[in-house]
C-alpha cells in the first residue's frame, strides 16, 4: 500500500509554499474556514533604480511589458539621513496623515508594503483609493512592494500572536531586507560600497519603534520625521492628533460624555430582528439639535433629539438607532436653535469634565419639552430615537473658518475650533501651530475621530484656501464643499482628444469612414436656441412642412459619443465628474474645452456631427413616425431665447428659419397642453440671475429670470426627444437601459403643507395622483396676491422626491414613471456635453439602431448601477453648488446696499420665522431676538401658524402673510459667508 502522505523534501516547491488559513463569518452568520495557498517568490523587484539584479528578472505581463522602476537612484536627504532615504510608512502613519504624503514639498520615494496596503484597505476605503492614486502618479515615486509574496520578507503569524504584531513584524522585516538589499545592489554596481540610501520606517506606534531600534532599523515617528524637514511648521499641523495624551488621561479615568456604541454583530442582529433600525442620519436645517432618520419600518422619519441621542453621529453617516418608548415621543420642533448662539465662547482646549449637553443647550431643550407637554394635540407626536452605533461614517474634508474666540495669542500649538460652512456639521477641534495665520482664512480640514470622551469631533488641518470672501478662495471652498472635481484634466485625458485640435472638421469627402451610416442633413434649416452666451451648444432644432400637411421636426444633439469612446481615460474622467457644474462666474466642464465648446458644440455656420431624432408630426401634435440617426448638420444660426422670441414676434420676418421657429412654437404649445392634461406638474423653484460687470466680473445686480415662450419651446422638444429615446433604448435593452425616474412622493410629505393651506386659506391639496396635485395646485390662488401660487408651488416642490438615474433592470416597469413629467418612461439624451447619463444613452441608442456594436461597459448592469449611483450624487451636488454660488453672489451684489422688499412668510417657529423674498430668490430667517433688544416675548399659536410678540416690540406674523423686510448684507459669523440679512419692517405690503 502506497502511502498518500507526500514527502515534502522531494518537492522542489516546498520551501516556497505557505498557506494562509483564516476564519471568516458570513452575513448569514455561518463561520467559514478559508485555506489559501501562497506561492513565495524571489523575483519581486525592489524597484530601486540603483538595483540591476532585480531588473534582470522583473516580471513582465502577457505582452512582455515591464513595469518601470520608480524609486530614484538619488533620493532626497534630510538632516538626519544626509545620504538620501526611502520611506516605509506603517498603516497608522498613513491613516493619521495621508494628507502629508500628498504634499509636493516632501515625501518622495516611498515604499508602500503590501501588508500596509491591505490593512489600510480594511480600515478605510477612501484612504486606500487615495493611496492607490498616489502610487499611480509618476512624480511622487511611490512603489508598492509585495512583501508577503517575497520569500525573504514573508512572515508567518505565530501561535497566539495578534495580527497587528505580525504585521508590524512584517513591516520591520521588509525594511531590514530593503536596506540589506540596497547595500548589496550598490556594492554590485560599483564594486565598493557607495552611497546607500537609508530605508526609514515611519510609525507612530511606540512599541514598534522600540523593536525597530533593537533590530537596528532606521525608524522614526511621523512628528520626529517631519520636524527634520524644511517645511516642518506647515507640515506638522497636518499630522492627526495622535493619541499621545491618551495614556495619561486614561489613568485619570475620564468620564465618558457619550455612550459607547454597540458592537457590529449586536447591531446587525438588532436590525435583523427589528429592534433596531438602520438609516442615514440627517440634521434638520434650522435646528442643529434635532436630527432625523428615515427607516423602512416607520412612515414618518424618526426624530433624534439632542446631542446625547445623536451620540456622535454626523450628518450623512449611516447609523443604527433604537426607537425610544412612546412617552418620549415628541412633536416636531417649532424652534430655531443654532449652535453659534448656544455654545459661544467655549474653550477648545478645555476638555475635562465637560458634559455632552451644555447647560444652555439643556435649557433650550427643556423649554421644548415643556411646550410639548403643555399641549395635548393628539397624534402629532413623532417617534423619537437614539443612535446606538455607526455603520459607516460619511466624513469628508470640510471647509470652514477658525472660530476667532477660540484662538489664544500664544504661538504655541493649540486647539482651535473650526466652524464648517455646512451648518449641519458640528464644530471640529483642530490642533494647529499656525492659529494666528489662519484666522480669517478659508481652511480645509479632515475629521479624524470622535471619541466617547469628547464633545466635538477632532480633525486636522489640511490647507488654507485663502482669505474669507476672496473670490478664488470662496469658489474653491464651494467646489470642495460639494466635492466637485475641478482640477485641470490630466494629460491622459487630453491625449484622447483628436490630434487636429481646433482644426478638426467634418471630413469633406463622404467616403471617409466618419461618414459611414451618417445621414447628410446639411441642407436642413437648423438653428439652436440657448441662453445668452452659451458656448456648449448641445442641441439644435429644425422643422419643415411635408407635402401631406404634416411637419417634419428634428432634434439634433451633439454627437459626443463619437469623440468619447468607452473605457478611454476621457470616458473614465467624465464618468467620475458626471456632470458639468455651472457657477455664477465659472463653469467646471465634464469634458475638455476642445470638445465641449468647439468640436461637439453645434455651433452655427459650421458642419458638425450630430445624433438626430426626427419625427413626422401632425398639426395636432400627434406623432406619426419617429426615427433616430447619426448625421452631419450645419446650424444656420445660434439664437438666444430673447433673440428667437423677438424674431417670432416680429411679423415682418418671413424667412424659412423664422417660419420654422413659429411652427415649432405652435407645436410645442400643443405638446405642453397634452402633458398638462396628462397630469404633468408645473413646479417652481426660485430662480434669479446675477448680473455681472463684464470686465471685472463683479456682481452688480440680481434679476429674477423672465420666462419666455421660446424657453418652453426648446424644453418641450427636449422632453419629446428624451421620452422617445427612452422608449427606444428600453425596447432594445430591457435590462440595462439608462433611464431616469421620479418617484411619486409619499402622501405624508404633503401632510404639513396640506394642513397649512387648509387652516390658513381653506384650500384643499389633493395628492392622490400627479394630475390631482397639478389641478389642486392650480386652485391655490389668492386673487389679491399673484405670487401666492408660486409660493405654494415652491413649497410643494420641496415635498417632492428627487428624480434619479437608474438602470432599467433594477426596477419594475411601473416604477419607471416620471411623476413630475407624468411620463411612463424617461431618460436624459439631450445634453451629452454636460451630463454623463446622456452620453451613456447615446451609446445605447447607437447600438439600438445598429450604428455600432454595443460596448460591454454600457450593457453591464453592475457597472451601470455604479455609474447611476455616482451621477445621482454628482447631479445633486452640482445643483447645490450652483445654488450656493448664486447665494454667495447675491450677497456680494447687495454688499453695502440697503433695500426694502416685500416677502412672504414660509415657515413660522416659536421663536422666529422664515421669509421668502421673490425679488432676490432668497429665504432668510428672522429670529425674535433680531427684532428688538431685549428680545420680545413671543406667543406662538402652532395650530394657526401665527406668531405674536409682546414687550419690547409688538408684531404679528402669520404663515403665507406678506411682510416688508429691509435687506442688507452681513458677514455671518457662523459660516463666514456674506449673506443677505433681512430685518423685519412691518406686516403687509409696501405702499
Amino acid at each position, binding site marked *: 500500500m502506497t502511502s498518500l502522505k*507526500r514527502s515534502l523534501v522531494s518537492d522542489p*516547491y516546498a520551501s516556497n509554499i505557505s498557506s494562509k488559513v483564516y476564519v471568516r463569518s458570513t452575513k448569514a452568520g455561518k463561520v467559514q474556514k478559508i*485555506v489559501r495557498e501562497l506561492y513565495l517568490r524571489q523575483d519581486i523587484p525592489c524597484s530601486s533604480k540603483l538595483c540591476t539584479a532585480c531588473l534582470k528578472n522583473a516580471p513582465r*505581463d*502577457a505582452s512582455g511589458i515591464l513595469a518601470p522602476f520608480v524609486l530614484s537612484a538619488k533620493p532626497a536627504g534630510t538632516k538626519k539621513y544626509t545620504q538620501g532615504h526611502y520611506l516605509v510608512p506603517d498603516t497608522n502613519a498613513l491613516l493619521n496623515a495621508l494628507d502629508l504624503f500628498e504634499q509636493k514639498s516632501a515625501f518622495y520615494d516611498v515604499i508602500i508594503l503590501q501588508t500596509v496596503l491591505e490593512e489600510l484597505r480594511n480600515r478605510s476605503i477612501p484612504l486606500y483609493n487615495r493611496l492607490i492614486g498616489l502610487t499611480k502618479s509618476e512624480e511622487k515615486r511611490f512603489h508598492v512592494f509585495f512583501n508577503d509574496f517575497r520569500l525573504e520578507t514573508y512572515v508567518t503569524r505565530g501561535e497566539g500572536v495578534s495580527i497587528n504584531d505580525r504585521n508590524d513584524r512584517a513591516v520591520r522585516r521588509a525594511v531590514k531586507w530593503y536596506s540589506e538589499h540596497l547595500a548589496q545592489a550598490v556594492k554590485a554596481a560599483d564594486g565598493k560600497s557607495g552611497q546607500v540610501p537609508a530605508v526609514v520606517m515611519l510609525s507612530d506606534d511606540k512599541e514598534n519603534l522600540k523593536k525597530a531600534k533593537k533590530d537596528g532599523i532606521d525608524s522614526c515617528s511621523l512628528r520626529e520625521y517631519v520636524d527634520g524637514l524644511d517645511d516642518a511648521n506647515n507640515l506638522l499641523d497636518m499630522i492627526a492628533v495622535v493619541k499621545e495624551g491618551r495614556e495619561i488621561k486614561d489613568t485619570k479615568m475620564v468620564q465618558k460624555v457619550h455612550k459607547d456604541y454597540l458592537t457590529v454583530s449586536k447591531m446587525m442582529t438588532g436590525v435583523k430582528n427589528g429592534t433596531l433600525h438602520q438609516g442615514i442620519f440627517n440634521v434638520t436645517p434650522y435646528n442643529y439639535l434635532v436630527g432625523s432618520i428615515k427607516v423602512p419600518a416607520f412612515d414618518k422619519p424618526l426624530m433624534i433629539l439632542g446631542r446625547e441621542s445623536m451620540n456622535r453621529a454626523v450628518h450623512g453617516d449611516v447609523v443604527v438607532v433604537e426607537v425610544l418608548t412612546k412617552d418620549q415621543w415628541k412633536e416636531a420642533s417649532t424652534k430655531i436653535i443654532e449652535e453659534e448662539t448656544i455654545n459661544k465662547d467655549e474653550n477648545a482646549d478645555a476638555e475635562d469634565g465637560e458634559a455632552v449637553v451644555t447647560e444652555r443647550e439643556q435649557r433650550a431643550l427643556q423649554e421644548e419639552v415643556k411646550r410639548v407637554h403643555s399641549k395635548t394635540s393628539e397624534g402629532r407626536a413623532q417617534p423619537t430615537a437614539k443612535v446606538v452605533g455607526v455603520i459607516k461614517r460619511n466624513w469628508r474634508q470640510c471647509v470652514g473658518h477658525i472660530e476667532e474666540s477660540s484662538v489664544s495669542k500664544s504661538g504655541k500649538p493649540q486647539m482651535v475650533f473650526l466652524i464648517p460652512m455646512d451648518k449641519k456639521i458640528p464644530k471640529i477641534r483642530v490642533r494647529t501651530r499656525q492659529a494666528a495665520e489662519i484666522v480669517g482664512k478659508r481652511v480645509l480640514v479632515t475629521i479624524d475621530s470622535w471619541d466617547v470622551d469628547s464633545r466635538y469631533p477632532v480633525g486636522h488641518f489640511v490647507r488654507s484656501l485663502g482669505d474669507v470672501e476672496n473670490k478664488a478662495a470662496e469658489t474653491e471652498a464651494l467646489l470642495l464643499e460639494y466635492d466637485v472635481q475641478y482640477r485641470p484634466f490630466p494629460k491622459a485625458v487630453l491625449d484622447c482628444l483628436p490630434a487636429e485640435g481646433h482644426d478638426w472638421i467634418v471630413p469633406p469627402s463622404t467616403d471617409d469612414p466618419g461618414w459611414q451610416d451618417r445621414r447628410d442633413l446639411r441642407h436642413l434649416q437648423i438653428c439652436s436656441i440657448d441662453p445668452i452666451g452659451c458656448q456648449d451648444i448641445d442641441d439644435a432644432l429644425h422643422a419643415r412642412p411635408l407635402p401631406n400637411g404634416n411637419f417634419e421636426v428634428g432634434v439634433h444633439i451633439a454627437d459626443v459619443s463619437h469623440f468619447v469612446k468607452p473605457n478611454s481615460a476621457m470616458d473614465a474622467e467624465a464618468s467620475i465628474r458626471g456632470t458639468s457644474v455651472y457657477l455664477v462666474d465659472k463653469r467646471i466642464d465634464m469634458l475638455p474645452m476642445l470638445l465641449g465648446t468647439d468640436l461637439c458644440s453645434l455651433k452655427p455656420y459650421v458642419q458638425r456631427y450630430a445624433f438626430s431624432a426626427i419625427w413626422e408630426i401632425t398639426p395636432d401634435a400627434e406623432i406619426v413616425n419617429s426615427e433616430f440617426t447619426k448625421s452631419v448638420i450645419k446650424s444656420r444660426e445660434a439664437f438666444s431665447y430673447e433673440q428667437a422670441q423677438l424674431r417670432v414676434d416680429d411679423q415682418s420676418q418671413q424667412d424659412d428659419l423664422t417660419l420654422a421657429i413659429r411652427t415649432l412654437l405652435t407645436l410645442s404649445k400643443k405638446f405642453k397642453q397634452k402633458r398638462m392634461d396628462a397630469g404633468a406638474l408645473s413646479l417652481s423653484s426660485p430662480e434669479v440671475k446675477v448680473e455681472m460687470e463684464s470686465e471685472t466680473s463683479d456682481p452688480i445686480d440680481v434679476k429674477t429670470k423672465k420666462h419666455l415662450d421660446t424657453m418652453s419651446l426648446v424644453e418641450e422638444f427636449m422632453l419629446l426627444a428624451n421620452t422617445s429615446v427612452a422608449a427606444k433604448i428600453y425596447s432594445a435593452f430591457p435590462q440595462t437601459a439608462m433611464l431616469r425616474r421620479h418617484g411619486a412622493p409619499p402622501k405624508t410629505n404633503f401632510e404639513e403643507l396640506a394642513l397649512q393651506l387648509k387652516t390658513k386659506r381653506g384650500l384643499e391639496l389633493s395628492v392622490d395622483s400627479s394630475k390631482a396635485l397639478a389641478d389642486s395646485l392650480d386652485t391655490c390662488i389668492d386673487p389679491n396676491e399673484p405670487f401666492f401660487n408660486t409660493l405654494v408651488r415652491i413649497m410643494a416642490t420641496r415635498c417632492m422626491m428627487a428624480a434619479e438615474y437608474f438602470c432599467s433592470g433594477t426596477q419594475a416597469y411601473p416604477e419607471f414613471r416620471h411623476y413630475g413629467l407624468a411620463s411612463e418612461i424617461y431618460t436624459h439624451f439631450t445634453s451629452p456635453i454636460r451630463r454623463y447619463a446622456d452620453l451613456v444613452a447615446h451609446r445605447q441608442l447607437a447600438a439600438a439602431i445598429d450604428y455600432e456594436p454595443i460596448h460591454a461597459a454600457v450593457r453591464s448592469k453592475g*457597472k451601470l448601477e455604479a455609474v447611476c449611483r455616482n451621477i445621482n450624487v454628482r447631479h445633486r451636488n452640482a445643483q447645490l453648488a450652483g445654488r450656493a454660488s448664486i447665494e454667495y453672489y447675491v450677497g456680494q451684489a447687495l454688499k453695502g446696499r440697503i433695500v426694502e422688499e416685500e416677502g412672504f412668510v414660509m415657515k413660522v417657529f416659536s421663536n422666529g420665522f422664515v421669509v421668502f423674498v421673490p425679488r432676490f430668490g432668497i429665504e432668510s430667517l428672522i429670529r425674535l431676538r433680531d427684532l428688538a433688544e431685549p428680545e420680545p416675548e413671543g406667543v406662538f399659536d402652532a395650530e394657526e401658524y401665527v406668531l405674536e410678540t409682546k414687550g419690547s416690540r409688538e408684531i404679528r406674523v402669520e404663515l403665507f402673510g406678506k411682510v416688508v423686510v429691509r435687506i442688507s448684507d452681513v458677514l455671518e459669523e457662523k459660516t463666514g459667508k456674506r449673506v443677505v440679512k433681512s430685518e423685519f419692517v412691518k406686516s403687509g405690503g409696501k405702499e
Partner: protein
Amino acid sequence: MPLDTSTYSLALLRLDGRRWNELRRLTAQISTQVAADGSSYLEMGNTKVMCTVAGPSEAKGAGGVRLGNDRADIRVSISIAGFSGVDRKKSGRNDKRLMEMQHTIASAFAQNLFTKLYPHSTISLSIHVLSQDGSLLAACINACTIALIDAGVPMHDYICACTAGSTSSYSSNDETADPLLDLNTMEEQELPFLTVATMGESDSVSVLIMETKVQVGRLEGMLAVGVDGCKQVRAILDGVARARGTKMLEGSRM
C-alpha cells in the same frame, strides 16, 4: 479580505502570488489503491482528487444478459466529499453540474482510449473529490488519465487539462487584460475562465468548456495559454508515469 483580483495590474501578481502563466503546484501519485485495477491521487494546489478504475470488465445486465456493443462503455461517477468545500454541502446524485462533468469526462476518454479492444465491456472511473479549490474538472480529467495508465488501458495519448482565465471581469472590460493559467476558487468566482483539455503533445483539443462571459477578443489568448498549460501538465504526468514504470521494472528484476 486581503487583496482582490483588481490589484493584479499593480504587481502582476495573482492572489496567491503566482504570475499569469504559472501553474499551481501539481503533484500526482499513481497506484494508490492496490485493490483497484488502476488508481491515482492528484493535487492541483488545494484541489485534491482521487480516482480509481475498475475494468475493463464484462458488462452484465440483469439476468446475466450480455450488454453493450462492439466497444467498451465508459462510466464515470464523481462523488464530492462533504468537507471538500468551504461550506459543508451534501451534493445530490442528480446534481446537474456533476452529471455534466461525468458526461464530459466519459466522452473525452471514449475518444482517447482504444475502446474497440474491449467489446461488451465497461470501464468504470470513480472519482472522489477530497478538496476543492478551483479547476475541478481539469483535476478530475488529469487524475483519470493517470489512473487509466495505471490500469493499463491502451490510449492514444495523455489527456491533460487545465483552466485559463482572464485578469479582468467581463463587465470591467479592461483592454489590457492578461490571460491567466490555472485558476483557484477565488479567481473562478470573479473572473471569466474556461477549461481546456488536449491530447498530450498535440494541440488537438478534446475538451473545451466555458460557462462565463468573456469578450471574444480575449478568447484566443486564453485558449493559447490554456493549451500551453496542458503541455506543462503532460510533462508532469508523464514524469509520474515514467517513475512508476522505472520502479516496476526494477521491482520485477528483483
